[in-house]
């Protein structure tokens, strides 16, 4: 469904952030993209919805080459792709409902959106999603009145109200505490499975990724260095991705969480799809 071919990006500063990435994500697959800071994870997902213009290569979404479209065609492509940001990216002076409904902008004419007169089916869907993320009573609150985790939930609702085929998720848990991180990650993955969405999730936390996704792709310095099931991650592959390190300590930061988490040893054992049969 999503197919990247020879995708490269060189920024104006000369940094080669992505080099020749070829990758296919079938419908309904939840894929984690891991790699050290600066590996090019954000650049990759931003090339998919053209927040960043790729330098070379193509991005096919259901047979349409997104890198070649402009104007209205580009906006139509973008509305099929939901995006969830690291720092929630809510418009903080807008209400929760306005933020969620902004996901419907590409389906709505200018004056309707300007006057905030969205069709009632859109409003109902927005409310359903707010219920799904547990914030139905917050709809009139202003964005800046919410906590970090709540903002992230609103961001999730905004992405899903687009009825996307593909979800791009950029480090959704990087600024959250361990417990909220797990809840947010679980929510995103459950929603993807409910709605048969494909997803590309950039994530720092390997343990968290292993527990929730179907497939892991490792990026290092803009190159694809790992592609396989979560169980394929071991001392050697982690070293390929992140460089030399004592991996047996990787799980310790999760210990504050009050939910059962993977212990140190478990990280290196293949983890089955226990939590998601």
């Amino acid at each position, binding site marked *: 469904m999503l197919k990247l071919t020879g995708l490269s990006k060189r920024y104006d500063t000369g940094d080669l952030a992505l080099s020749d990435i070829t990758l296919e994500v079938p419908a309904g697959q939840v894929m984690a993209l891991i790699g050290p800071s600066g590996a090019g994870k954000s650049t990759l997902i931003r090339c998919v919805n053209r927040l960043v213009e790729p330098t070379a290569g193509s991005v096919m979404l259901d047979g349409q080459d997104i890198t070649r479209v402009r104007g209205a065609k580009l906006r139509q492509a*973008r509305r099929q792709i939901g995006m969830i940001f690291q720092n929630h990216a*809510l418009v903080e002076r*807008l209400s929760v409902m306005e933020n969620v409904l*902004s996901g419907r902008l590409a389906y709505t004419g200018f004056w309707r*959106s300007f006057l905030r007169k969205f069709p009632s089916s859109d409003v109902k869907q927005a409310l359903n999603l707010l219920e799904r993320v547990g914030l139905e009573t917050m709809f009139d609150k202003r964005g800046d009145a919410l906590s970090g985790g709540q903002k992230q939930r609103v961001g999730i609702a905004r992405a899903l109200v*687009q009825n996307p085929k593909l979800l791009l998720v950029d480090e959704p848990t990087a600024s959250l505490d361990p417990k909220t991180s797990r809840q947010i990650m679980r929510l995103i993955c459950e929603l993807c499975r409910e709605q048969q969405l494909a997803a590309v999730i950039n994530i720092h936390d390997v343990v968290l990724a292993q527990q929730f996704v179907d497939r892991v792709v490792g990026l290092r310095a803009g190159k694809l260095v790992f592609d396989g099931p979560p169980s394929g991650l071991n001392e050697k592959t982690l070293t390929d991705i992140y460089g030399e390190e004592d991996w047996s300590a990787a799980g310790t930061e999760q210990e504050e969480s009050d939910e059962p988490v993977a212990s140190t040893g478990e990280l290196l054992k293949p983890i089955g799809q226990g939590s998601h049969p």
Partner: protein
Amino acid sequence: MSRTLPDSGVDAQRLALLKDGVWKPLPLIRDTRWRWALNASVLLYIVLAWLSVDVNWARVAQGMDRGLAFIASFLQPDFVSRSGEIFAGLKESLTMTLAATVIGVLLAIPVGLGAARNISPLPVYFVCRTIIALSRTFQEIIIAILFVAMFGFGPLAGVVTLAFATIGFMAKLLAEDIEDTQREPLEAIRATGASWLQWVNYAVQPQVMPRLIGLSLYRLDINFRESAVIGIVGAGGIGATLNTSINRYDYDTSAAILLLIIVIVMTSEYLSGYVRKWTQ
């Protein structure tokens, strides 16, 4: 002067002093000789400047009398004998001010959007920055003289002058505010596939609206004060009334007019503070 360690770039002398617990921030100019030369030249400039001021004390004494008469008239301002002219002038000024502010702000919004580097393509950016520069280069009085020559005496020249000055002022500050917006919400709304106008309405406007309202009210103040000044060169309003009274040495009426201007500016200052708090 002070030795520097080969690779680290650390000043050995300062490091040694630091170890004894002595630390001073780095001086702005490293080299002591340059520092002294600069200080000496500033001093020299002040002395020369003082010596070159040539005051005609006789003229000052004469003018002092007139100034004192002007100030004395504030003790007995005359609101009554010219009340008709004063009222008409104030009404004209307020109308000019409001019209010019509304027109100016409306025109400043597109220019401000175009002049924000983070959201505009380079050619648009340059055009808009040029408009701003043009509007801000000339003082209101000079613009007023030009427009009075074009449109004749009266409030029309005043409105056009104030609107023109408002564009530069508002567009520049609006553009700076847009450049300070958070980038992620802008990207998030773009990523939904929103059109450009929807994007401005949902992502940019909420972030800059409070400041835009505050600045518009501030500009309303400024325009009212300016309307008193540009009236003197023929652009209508209370300035014209004030100018007439001064030319007639009717300082009691001038004082009344100035007091009214002060009251109006203070009232609007108070009101705009209140509105600004409410829009946050």
